[in-house]
Structure formats: structure tokens, C-alpha cells
């Protein structure tokens, strides 16, 4: 036998999660890609997660009332931790889903039990304001699987992106409209 008994379930779950990643954490991505189909040769704004320092400007500088930047989740990189430091603040009162225990200011992360002791974390896109707090929490202790991306079903593709101007780490750049996302694959740790 190659794995402890819990593993086949988890393996199956992970395979499903990976297949579904586009539709779950990257929900906007699918929508955005559909919206941009046929725009070969054009360019749009995107932020490079390898340059982003999650400063918080993405939430406040976008010309839209609700930023076009939102958090996405790389399920392939996630540890499915019970004590997710992207979900819980540094000192949670309790390890439960109550609002007082959450790091996200808008309750945009959904925690779902998978199997002991694994939990899945999904971004509820409509609630996410792109503040990057969860990105910081996940980076501090975890695998860095939460990160920000401009969502192209929302972005107006301004001539001069207001966030790009304010970005302290020059993370914004123009990318081809038919390939508009800069996805994280594996972190440095792996």
C-alpha cells in the first residue's frame, strides 16, 4: 500500500479541485476569458503576483467603486490547513468560522471541511475587495497560494490604470488580451 487510508479520498478530492480550479477560485478568470475571446493583438492590464507585495492599494486606487482586482486561489499550491493563516487572523479567538475569527474584512473566504484535518478555502468573488490581507496571511506562514489578479470581466482597461500608477512595486504590466492572467504555479519553497 502506498498511502495512508485517508489519502485516496484526498487524492480524488485534489484531482477534482485541480480540474475545477478555473471554475472555483478563478471564477472571474473563466468569465473574463470568455469576455475577451477574439481580442488577439490587444493588450490589457494585469498584476504580476511575483512582484505584488499586497500593499492594499489595489482595493482603493481602482477607478471602480469596487476594485477590479480580486483574490484568487491556487488550489494546487494550498496546504488545505485547518489553521489557515489566510483565513484566520494571527491570534484567532477560536478556530471557527465566526466573523470575529476571520481575517477577511468582508467575509469573502468560504471555509469548507473536506476530511480530517483538511479544509478548502474558496474566494467568494462578489465579496472580495482586493485588499490583500489574506494574501499577506497566507504568505507569512503558508504556501502563498492566495494572490491577487485583475478580473477582466470587471476591469475597464483604462488607458492609464490608476492602480498601476499607485503600485509601489511596479507589479502592473500589459499582457495579451487573449492570455490575460498571470497565474502562480509553485512557490519557491517547493
Amino acid at each position: 500500500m502506498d498511502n495512508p487510508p485517508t489519502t485516496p479520498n484526498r487524492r480524488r478530492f485534489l484531482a477534482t479541485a485541480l480540474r475545477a480550479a478555473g471554475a472555483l477560485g478563478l471564477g472571474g478568470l473563466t468569465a473574463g476569458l470568455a469576455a475577451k475571446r477574439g481580442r488577439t493583438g490587444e493588450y490589457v492590464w494585469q498584476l504580476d503576483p511575483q512582484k505584488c507585495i499586497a500593499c492594499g492599494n489595489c482595493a482603493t486606487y481602482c477607478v471602480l467603486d469596487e476594485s477590479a482586482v480580486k483574490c484568487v486561489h491556487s488550489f494546487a499550491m494550498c496546504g488545505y490547513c485547518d489553521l489557515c493563516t489566510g483565513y484566520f487572523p494571527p491570534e484567532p479567538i477560536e478556530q471557527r468560522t465566526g466573523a470575529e475569527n476571520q481575517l477577511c474584512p468582508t467575509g469573502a473566504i468560504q471555509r469548507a471541511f473536506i476530511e480530517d484535518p483538511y479544509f478548502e478555502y474558496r474566494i467568494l468573488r462578489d465579496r472580495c475587495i482586493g485588499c490583500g490581507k489574506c494574501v499577506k496571511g497566507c504568505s507569512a506562514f503558508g504556501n502563498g497560494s492566495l494572490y491577487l489578479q485583475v478580473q477582466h470581466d470587471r476591469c475597464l482597461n483604462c488607458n492609464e490604470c490608476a492602480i498601476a500608477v499607485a503600485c509601489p512595486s511596479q507589479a502592473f504590466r500589459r499582457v495579451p488580451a487573449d492570455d490575460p492572467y498571470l497565474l502562480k504555479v509553485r512557490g519557491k519553497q517547493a
Partner: protein
Amino acid sequence: MLQQNPPLRRLLPIALGGLLVAVLVVASLAVLLYDPSGEAGNRLPENFQYDLSAFQKIDPALIRYRQAAEIPLELKQPRGIAAGREDQILVAGDRAVLIFDSHGKKISQIDLADEPRCLAVAGQDHAVPGRIYVGLKDRLAVFDAADAPPKTWETRGLKAFFTSVAPAEHDVFVADAGNKIVWRYDVQGKLLGRIGDPGPDGNIPPFIVPSPYFDVAVSPDGLLRAVNPGRFQIEAFTFDGFLEQTWGLPGLEISRFCGCCNPSALAVLPDGRIVTGEKGIARVKVYNAEGKFQCVVVGPDVLTPTPAAVAESRDEHRLLPVDLAADRQGRILVLDPAARRVRIFVEK
């Protein structure tokens, strides 16, 4: 006989009705405001910033070691450290193992065909004393002497991700973060068993390894110590895989293990005390063999280049966790990958 007076009798249904309405209003409000899943968002202050600086400070009275020396490393990515014969210091990284004498003077180097992930040197009690075990991703490269050609043991497959190796007298244990298991070999490389399976009664909890940091060490009490990082525990096993002891709690308090999965590194001192290293808030601490916190060796003030580096989101700039070893003199060797150096600590 007591008789209710007529106005009171008339008022009673009204009072009861009012009470019922009040109960209904309170109940409806409770249902409307109850937020078990936290969907309404948290109650942290609006200007809340993710800031761990308060947790990076350590009471100086708890620090009972001092840095006696340090060795700068010419390695881009140092990965593992071990104490060798005569307290030599060995560091694996890039595609090499660097060998230093006990004072930090480089004496030789082994070039490797692949990237090393971990290493260990067999002690005097081992069947082949001084043998160097280098963990590659999915197999061990074994050197009977620094200038001898390596023997490569069987691969454990695509999923394997070796993160630690620990030789005992007649056994060699390898922590595999990919398979979440500790492999047990004999000194010829024959697989003897695996540790971390549920056991005949199903009561051994599996290893939870969310990131590729999974360390093992053999203690002088004859038990294998393994980190179970997702449970924030140190576990002690017999070589046959029976769980004898567990200890450790999650939390930012100094006696606990911080973050989402810790400790990330482990070493055993000659007297059996356990040295742990944590990722995130980088701190190296000493516990007695039963898990009672004793002191801090070094903390984030030394191991973190800037306070902001703790929550760094750019992968290339993220703080890599320390690796640990202890030599026969009881010195604690800390491999600090951020500073690309070995720090040698002695008791104050």
C-alpha cells in the same frame, strides 16, 4: 379564597400578547444577525493591517544561547545542515555538499549530480560510521567517504519529496513530505517499513504535511522523533512505528508553535533535549524530551532580514525556513538560508 380583580384579568391577555411579540422580535433579530459562517465580515478594526511585528519580539531573558561563530556560504540555495565526524559541519545546497571543520574552515566539497534536499552524517554507533546520506528529491545518495563515489538507493517514485534523513545504529529513516510518511531502511538500502501508517488499531494519526518541511531525528533514548507539522506536534516513535509520545500546541506564544504548520525543523542535543525551528516567525527553541519549553536559541531579530520579510508575498523574496543540527559538544548549528550562512550557537 383569593380573587383576581376584574381590571387585572382584562390586562393579562394584553401583557401576554405583548410579551409574545417582544419574544418574536428578539428571536427574529437574533436569526437575522446571527452569522455563524462569518459572512458579514469580521470585527477587526477597519484600519487593521496584517502586522506580526509584536509577535517577533522575544523576551531577552528567555534567550539562553549566544552566537559563537558564523560561516558564510557560497551557495545560492542552502537546503540542509548536519554535524559530522569530529564536529565537522556539512551543508547541502545547489548541487554540492560543503564540508567545514568544527571552526568553520572549509576542508572539502562533494559535487552532486542533482539538487540536494537534506543530509545527515552517521554517528560512531552506525554500521558505517561517518557515512554521508544526501537526500535528493526521491532517493538517497550515500557516500562512504567524502571522496568515494556515491551509491544511489532506489527511488520512492514521482510523488516522493525527501526532506530529512536520520541514521540510527542499523537503520536509516527518511521523511518524505510528498508521501507524508517516514521510510525505514537498513544500512544497505533495503526498505524495512514505513512510519505514519494508522497501525493495527488505527489509532496513529497520519502525518499532516501542508508544505515541504517535514523533519526527523533519532534521539539518545532510542526513539525516532518526527515533526507532525499540521498538528503542531513532535511525535516519538519506536523504530517499528509505534507512537510513544506526542507534544506541542499551536499558537504564537513562545512555548507554542506558530502559523499554519510548524515546527519546520528539528534536531536532538546529545542529552536528548529537542531543538525546534519555526517558519513564518523564525524562532529556534529548546524543549526537554517530554516537551517542556526551556529556552530560545535565536529569534526573528537575527533570522529575519527586515520585519516586513515575514509576510512577504513575492515568492523570490519569501523567508525560507532554517534547518538545524546539533553536534557532540551540544552546539546548535542553524542554517540561515536568508543570510546564506551557518550560525553556531552555544549556551551562555
